[in-house]
């Protein structure tokens, strides 16, 4: 009997896996824009050492303006895909983007920014990923929109695409800046 049960194990495990896959496919779950439990809630407080060595990047310091906070890492390949978009947002649209280097050695983050260009007005070092954990970061890159009062208004999981930027990010920023 035990022996039979052992042979049932593979198919049972597979069915459990298929169940997870089905959950992952449910239509309201969009992996590109996972709803955050923190939407419309105050952003978690953080104070991070600045990547360039001068001062800190803190949640309090960002208050009073509508900002985009982008979690990135030098070891993250999708970050390189969205990087040109961030550069365009920073230079052409003048969007204030702040970077948080997630679980990354500061020298590696500095290197990648030196090499590709730095779209960030300021970058904080989240060496152990604690701030990322507070935000509920699922994987880098991840991008948050935070309003003047410090509330998270939107979350984008995975690399930003030109379409998301045009249709969602820029309209949202415009609306938040007007109000």
């Amino acid at each position: 009997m035990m022996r039979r049960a052992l042979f049932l194990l593979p198919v049972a495990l597979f069915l459990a896996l298929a169940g997870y896959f089905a959950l992952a496919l449910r239509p309201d779950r969009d992996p590109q824009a996972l709803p955050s439990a923190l939407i419309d809630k105050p952003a978690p407080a953080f104070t991070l050492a600045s990547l360039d060595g001068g001062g800190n990047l803190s949640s309090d310091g960002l208050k009073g303006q509508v900002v985009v906070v982008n979690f990135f890492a030098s070891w993250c390949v999708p970050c390189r895909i969205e990087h040109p978009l961030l550069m365009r947002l920073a230079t052409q649209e003048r969007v204030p983007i702040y970077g948080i280097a997630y679980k990354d050695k500061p020298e590696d983050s500095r290197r990648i920014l030196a090499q590709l260009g730095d779209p960030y007005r300021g970058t904080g070092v989240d060496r152990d990923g604690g701030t990322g954990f507070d935000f509920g970061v699922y994987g880098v890159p991840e991008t948050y929109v935070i309003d003047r009062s410090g509330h998270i208004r939107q979350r984008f999981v995975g690399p930003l695409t030109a379409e998301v930027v045009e249709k969602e990010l820029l309209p949202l920023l415009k609306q938040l800046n007007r109000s």
Partner: protein
Amino acid sequence: MIVEIGHFALILALVVAIVQAALPLAGAARGNVAWMEVGRSTALAQFLLMAIAMAALMHAYVTSDFTVVNVIENSHTDKPLLYKITGVWGNHEGSMLLWVFILSLCGAAVALFSNNLPPALRARVLAVQGMIGTGFLLFILLTSNPFLRELPPPLNGRGLNPVLQDPGLAFHPPFLYLGYVGFSVSFCFAVAALIEGRVDSAWARWVRPWTLASWCALTIGIAMGSWWAYYTLGWGGWWFWDPVENASFLPWLVGTALIHSAIVVEKRDTLKSWTVLLAIITFSLSLVGTFLVRSGVLTSVHAFAVDPARGSFILLLLLVAIGGSLALYAVRAPALKGGGLFAPVSREGALVLNNLLLSTGAATVFLGTLYPLFLDAVGGPKLSVGPPFYNKTFVPLMVPVLVAVAAGPLLAWKRGDLLGALQRLWAAFAAAVVVVLGALYVTSGGPVLAVLGLGLAAWTFVGVLAEWTERLKLFRIPARDSWRRARNLPRSAHGMTLAHLGLAISVAGIAASAFEVEHIDIVAPGGDLPLAGYTLHLDKVEKLQGANYVADDATITVKRGDAVIAVVHPQRRFFPLQQQTTSETAIRTNFLADLYIALGEPDQAGGWTIRAYWKPLVPWIWIGAVFMAFGGVVSLSDRRWRVGVASRLRAPAAQAAAGD
């Protein structure tokens, strides 16, 4: 017109696949030979039809037929011809077509080279192959049809992602799919054996070459992908533990386990139900990989366009194929009787250890890949799994694998002498110690784990060579007699030696990457950048016009002291159509180390960011992979697998020469 012929051939292939799935199976159940034989003709017909469909789509790409939606979205008249052709599989629809084309190729190969197979087994194998084909052809026709038209046609296409316009990546998918889909043959054999309720050494002798061939193709495919990432992403990394990379690595790991456990079935007629399970899981992981890449449940650079309908369809296919085969396994496998007994310390025991470690390693990678998905599904905290996870879990599991690779082949079947084997490995142990001490001296106490990794590679390399020289009695008997022994040794033994040497070479390359030296700085034309004893002199940066891009082309003279070693040209290419920049790195190798130079952004003062790396032993990673694949090919040429030999060796293979 040609597009419609392709479309029609695809529909016809579906009809043929349905016949192939049903009739031979019924024939095998009733003992109707004529029905069984339908399997062969339908398999060949399916291959022919898929070839027509493939050729039709290729024709549309080469002639830039912009009435076809797929061509509009992925091609452009300015694209070089090579990338017009390879662009066929640079997108979701076309790559699925390639997937099924290769499936039909495997089916045709089974039909052609299976004269010695019992007709009922052959019919069942081809029928299962037909079922898989039916599922995926339905998938293409219903959700991902590459032959859809759009009228009126636009003036030009949207072009292929510039990152994909690269010779390394152009041929990466065909090899990868040859591996993925090739494993379907082992899967079909496993399912057919479960239906028949019989697994014997003749079965293993049939399955192993197919598995080995697929494994070789997958090895090359993965190595090509990693090499592409290395030279094209411009910062010297070659493996990122990205979900899609893992999706190709998982079937490789389990497929490697399968190759080894099939040996035990062939030689000793035991471990049967485990081997059947591995054969099912290997292909199942290929299918799961397809699901992960194409359903968009995980985010990855490689992911294709996301469409929930496709995801649901593939999930349905997974349920039928994997769920069905594993359910069949649960019902039929308990009846498979194991054969020969063996002591824990024996060749069988070593192969079981190999299997345990490889499958645990695969489970670790699987968990790491899907962990974010699992947690998210139950609404748990959101975590991310990066390279640190794999370094702490997967890498330690591979250490005992390497230790065992040297010792395993020295153990006898049934009951081995571990002490004796270890005594014969004194040279390997000495080599490991020398390499560790040497590396510590040269790097003045550099990273300890990397140094140990090098020592482990030396242990494996010398240990594998020791086993080989022992078989030839090299240096102990006259050279001519050793030569005779080498010629009499089965090719599969030489193949094993080559593949294991390749593993050691790759491991050395991976371990040594910890010793790399990098120097990144802004250099003005005329300036120098020192790197690991070399001087890189930036002569100039010019604008060049390419076929569909504009390039900044740097001329850099590499000097050692005053001697000029090389002049290299790293480039940054800008593709105006896609508004995207790619990096063409310059790599100068002497096979012991790479000089890796990439051109970065210019600054306002006329300087350029130059990223330069000195990477010791890095080329060995891919050289090792080529050795592994070559070892597989040598093993495949073994005479006992050639057409017509299998039937003459139907008797239990105990006398096969490899184990003497």
